[in-house]
Each structure stands twice: as C-alpha cells, then as structure tokens.
C-alpha cells in the first residue's frame, strides 16, 4: 500500500514540477505582460494543485492534509486576484502610453 502511495506521490509531483518548468520557459519566451500572466496562472492552478495532491498521502494526519489543501486554496485565491490587479494596471499603463 505504501509503495502504491509513494509511486502516486512521485508521479503527481513530477507532473506538477513539469508544469512549473513549462511556465518558467513561457515566462521567459512570451512577449508581454498579459501573456506571461496567462502562463503563470496555469502554474498556480494546476502545477501547485498537482504537487499538493501528490503530497496528501505523505501528510501523516488528516489535519496536516487539510492544512495543505488550505494552503493551496489560499494560493489559488490570492493568485487569481493578484493576476487581475497586475493585468488591470498593465492595461491602464497601455492606455496612457
């Protein structure tokens, strides 16, 4: 049973890390702020989600797992809002220029 859980953790975290690498690449290659934000939001949602998902069996206790999920939800929430704020200020600057 532990073996299956460990394999699950390794697989999920690896895919999550893959998303982070892709996003870092996109962040360097994409031409402007809005497309870069588009790339970064994918990481917040899917990459971190997969890593947290993969770590759940390793959390040791139900409380620990719940805390991990809370961290993920908070990052989701603040990530979505900060993205909106940055996108809005980018657009405002674009209009002024």
């Amino acid at each position: 049973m532990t073996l299956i859980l460990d394999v699950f953790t390794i697989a999920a975290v690896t895919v999550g890390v893959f998303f982070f690498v892709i996003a870092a690449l996109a962040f360097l290659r994409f031409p402007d702020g809005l497309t870069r934000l588009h790339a970064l939001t994918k990481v917040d949602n899917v990459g971190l989600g997969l890593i947290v998902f993969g770590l759940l069996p390793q959390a040791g206790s139900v409380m620990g797992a719940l805390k991990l999920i809370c961290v993920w939800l908070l990052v989701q929430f603040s990530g979505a809002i900060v993205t909106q704020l940055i996108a809005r200020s980018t657009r405002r600057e674009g209009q002024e220029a």
Partner: protein
Amino acid sequence: MASVFDVTLVCLILAVGAWSTFARLTFSAIVIFIVYGLLLSLAWVRLAAVDVALTEAAIGSGVTGMLLLNAVARLRSTDAAPTPSRSSVNIAAGVFCTLITASLAGLVLVPPQVPVSLAPSVMESLGQSGLGNPVAGVLFVYRSLDTLLEKVVLVLALIAVWSLAPDGLWGGKPALRPFPQRDSVLIFLARTVPPIGIMVGIYMFWVGADEPGGAFQGGAVLAAMWILVMIAGLAAVPPTSSHALRLALIVGPVVFLAIGILGIFLTGTFLAYPEGYAKPLIIAIEATLTVSIGVTLAMHVVGPPEKEWRS
C-alpha cells in the same frame, strides 16, 4: 540526494544575492532582494530553524521588501536622471562589506576555541517555564532583556520615521497612497482575506509557545492584513496623534517592562518570573507584543505624516 538539493540552494542564494547587487534598476534590485529573502528562509528550514525561517519570510522579505518598494516609489520623482554613482564610495562600501563577511565567516569556520553549547541545559530546564518551544524559552526566559530591547528599537525606529515630517505636520495623517482608483477586485481581496489572516496571525502567536511561531511572526501577518485594508481604501489611516494608536504602539513593551520590574520585587531580579507564573506572564507579554508589533510594522510601512489633521 539531500546534499544535492542543499548545494543547489546555496548556489542559487549566492547567485541571486550577486544579481540583486549588480541589478541596474533599483526596482528590480528590490524584487530580486525579496526573492533572495524567500530562498534564505528555505535555507533556514533546511537547517531545522523554522522559527528563523518564518521571521525571515515575514520580516526580512515581506515587510522590508514593502518598505524598500515604498522608498522606490517616493524616490521616483527625484531621481529621474540617474546620477552616476561615485566609484570611490562604491569601492569603500565593497571593501567594508567584504571585511565584515570575511570576519563573520572566519569566526564561524575557525572559532578561537571550541564553542560551548548551552542547548542541553536549556532543554533541561525548559519545563520550568511551561513552554514547549525552546526558541520561545530562550527569547522570553534567558534572553528576555534582548527581546525587550528589540521591541523598544521598533518603536524608536517609528519615532525616527515620524520625525521626517515637517514641524507643522507632526501628529498629522500619513499619506498612504491608496490604489489609484477604487478597484473592485482589490476591495474584494481586502474583504475576504483579513478574517483568515487575523486568525492565522493569532494562531501563530498562540502556537509559538510550543511550536515554531511567536509574537513577531504573528504580528507581521496582522500588520499585512491592516495594510491591505488601508490600501484598498476600506479603513482610514489613523492620524499619528491618535491616542488609541499610540497606546497600541507601546502597550507591548510597557507590559513587558512592567512585568520585568515586578520581578525585582517578587524575586529580586529584573525580568525574572515568579515561580509557577512564568507561562501566564509570558503569554500576557506575547499577546500584547503581537498587537504592538503588528501596529508598529504597519505604521512603518504607512510612513511619516504628510497631511494636516485636526480632530
């Protein structure tokens, strides 16, 4: 495997540190400095010093980063034309920084004598204080004078910030630049996150007795929540002459000092806790300190008074 991670982390920290030094724009240098702080707190976690990691992330990276960003925003109007920095000054600063780093490294790597660890004796008598976290025990039992002075320094620094205001504006209102327009998304954030953040802040202070955490970390989270609400324009920035504000600023250090003086009468030693009452007294000190630290840090970020204010 673990050492590969650690070596990579150390190389990354050195690279990011150098990058922050060589960055040409002040703004980018500060953003890199914030990343540097976050990497440092990872290193502290690897060294099993979670208390230090939390403080580094909250104060070293978070609050300091915000203060520096504020400074850049204020300087933007004055340094439109970047003046070439004097190379003699740069060289002198570089030499002194290298000297400090080299002497610190020398002390750590080649200590004059084998350092005596007090850790075992701390762990032995930790039970008397009723605390489970040895870091909190050292901060509030063995080195409480340092801890007290540290909090007083925060208030002194705030007085220095306030002193930047011209005479006529003393006691006036800090001009925190709120978001340019009332932004619906920011207001939404400032309405939903503070309840969670305040709970996390209080939890960090409370858990500090037995687990990593404490007044400083909890206070920093509370400060962040207050700043968020003020930036979103949901709460007014208090005038610096406000009695409630000034009371909140000093209540922590005053309670700490009062309990310290009480120790002279009850036990004969300044800052000693009477037997059996250590835990409740430390909690009283930490609770008031959390409030004071939160308010002090937030007022540091908000800055000196810039608007006149009459009640």
